[in-house]
């Protein structure tokens, strides 16, 4: 058994040939949850896209499950078992929730669609209530949950979540984080970007801090949470301990 599911080795990536991410390296163990922390524009989303293959690869290596994948297209990576939920709106607005979920099963054998969708609806009952509604008409939070569900349907072994709690009410947020924790326990490796850092760190094993497109710090969630510099720069500073655990 391989110990590391994903290894980044000096990865450089960006847009239109210009690097945004510089020389980033780290390794992810199977079944762990890792959070990226960083200010707005630090390059977190770009790093996620680089791992999924939807921005320009400019150097370095990505090893997934023992295979070099940096030259592969996004759908090839998808086939290998990488699932990516991008930041902001990313669904098929003119299709119903049911159809969107069916699209989530695009690469799966037909006979599995029903069961998987039913199971997903059970985990996220708010989608079941809106099953006939067009995705574009859902509320912001409902769409966010839908998108996460669409990717989860294919049961990826590496899950990239770019701000999964964006626009989620605390209760829904709790549901989503619970779900993530559960699948991680089942062996799925999860990489999360969150501005809701407190919530995310609570479920994470590890945290990586990005600054100006470079890796600034790496440590356990606990370490990062208690690092006073990090607290000041990214966690909203002087919060009382009580507020943090809210």
């Amino acid at each position, binding site marked *: 058994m391989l110990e590391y599911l994903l290894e980044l080795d000096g990865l450089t990536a960006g847009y239109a040939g210009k690097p945004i991410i510089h020389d980033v390296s780290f390794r992810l163990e199977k079944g762990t949850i890792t959070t990226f922390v960083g200010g707005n524009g630090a390059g977190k989303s770009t790093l996620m896209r680089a791992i999924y293959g939807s921005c320009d690869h400019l150097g370095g290596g990505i090893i997934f499950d023992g295979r070099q994948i940096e030259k592969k297209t996004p759908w090839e990576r998808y086939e290998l078992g990488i699932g990516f939920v991008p930041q902001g709106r990313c*669904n098929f607005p003119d299709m119903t929730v049911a159809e969107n979920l069916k699209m989530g099963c695009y690469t799966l054998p037909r006979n599995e669609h029903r069961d998987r969708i039913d199971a997903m609806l059970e985990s996220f009952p708010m989608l079941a209530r809106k099953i006939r509604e067009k995705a574009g008409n859902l509320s912001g939070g409902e769409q966010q949950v839908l998108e996460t569900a669409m990717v989860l349907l294919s049961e990826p072994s590496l899950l990239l979540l770019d701000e999964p709690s964006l626009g989620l009410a605390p209760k829904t947020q709790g549901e989503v984080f619970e779900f993530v924790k559960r699948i991680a326990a089942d062996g799925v490796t999860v990489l999360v970007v969150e501005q809701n850092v407190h919530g995310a760190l609570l479920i994470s094993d590890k945290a990586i801090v990005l600054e100006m497109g470079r890796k600034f710090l790496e440590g356990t969630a606990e370490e990062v949470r208690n690092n006073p510099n990090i607290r000041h720069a990214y966690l909203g500073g002087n919060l009382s301990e009580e507020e943090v655990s809210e």
Partner: protein
Amino acid sequence: MDYIYFLQLTANGLVIGLIYALIAVGLALLFGVLGIVNFAHGELLLIGAYAMAIALPAFGLAYIPGVIVAVLTAIIAGWFIYEVFLSKLGHGEFERSILITMGLSIVILNGIQYIFTATPLLVNTEFGYAGVSIGDIRVAWTRIAAAVLSAVTFAALYVLLNYTQIGRAMRAVSQNRDAALMVGMQPRKIGRNAVILAASLCGLAGAAVAPVQLVQPYLGQFLVFKAFAIIIIGGMGSIEGAVFAAIALGVIESWIGGFFPVVWQEAAGFIIMITVLMLKPSGLFSRGGMRVG
């Protein structure tokens, strides 16, 4: 009123309406699936028609093999156009798609005119000018064949789009490329399939029209403007709407042509379209609008 006369007009109109529908459906498909208003649609049709007009005498083909040649030629053209131009389009670049297809239309039209001259080609099939007569009503076999071709096509297309994963994937890619990537689709491949499908419809339409009318460079333009009006009436991108509007327009035009000066026949489609839009700005068969926030 002379009901035989009326029925003959209706029969003429039905056939023409079905031919319109064949053209309009391809247009609606490209719009519905890729968000492209294809100004080169008439020229793709032209390619099909010329392929048929040249292949029939050159290889002594019969009607059906001729149709297949036309469809294949159009598919090759569509594939080429997709790979070189349309695949460069991003999501929602609707005006750009118009301009690309407009450029293609200019190049193909004038290129064909340059190569084949404006002299029309006559396509003669094994049906000749023979037809069926029911009482005093008569329809030529070539027209019936065209009508049957288009009816079969609609059925196939309807099933494809609504009941298969491929059809749904095409719609998905048109709505959001990023989301398509997110669920592991290959937008480029799906886009190519959609264009090829639409091109084959053009080729089919060209093959259907060729024996009925004259094959000459401006054949496509005249028909395609009408098809634009049709897909607007039907609600942009709605296949069922396009079929309905096309058949209705064919019949109405025929009636008008039978009772009023020819000018009104030509204006009918346009005037109907404007009226429909006044009453229902999104067309007869459109889906509802989207929320803003």
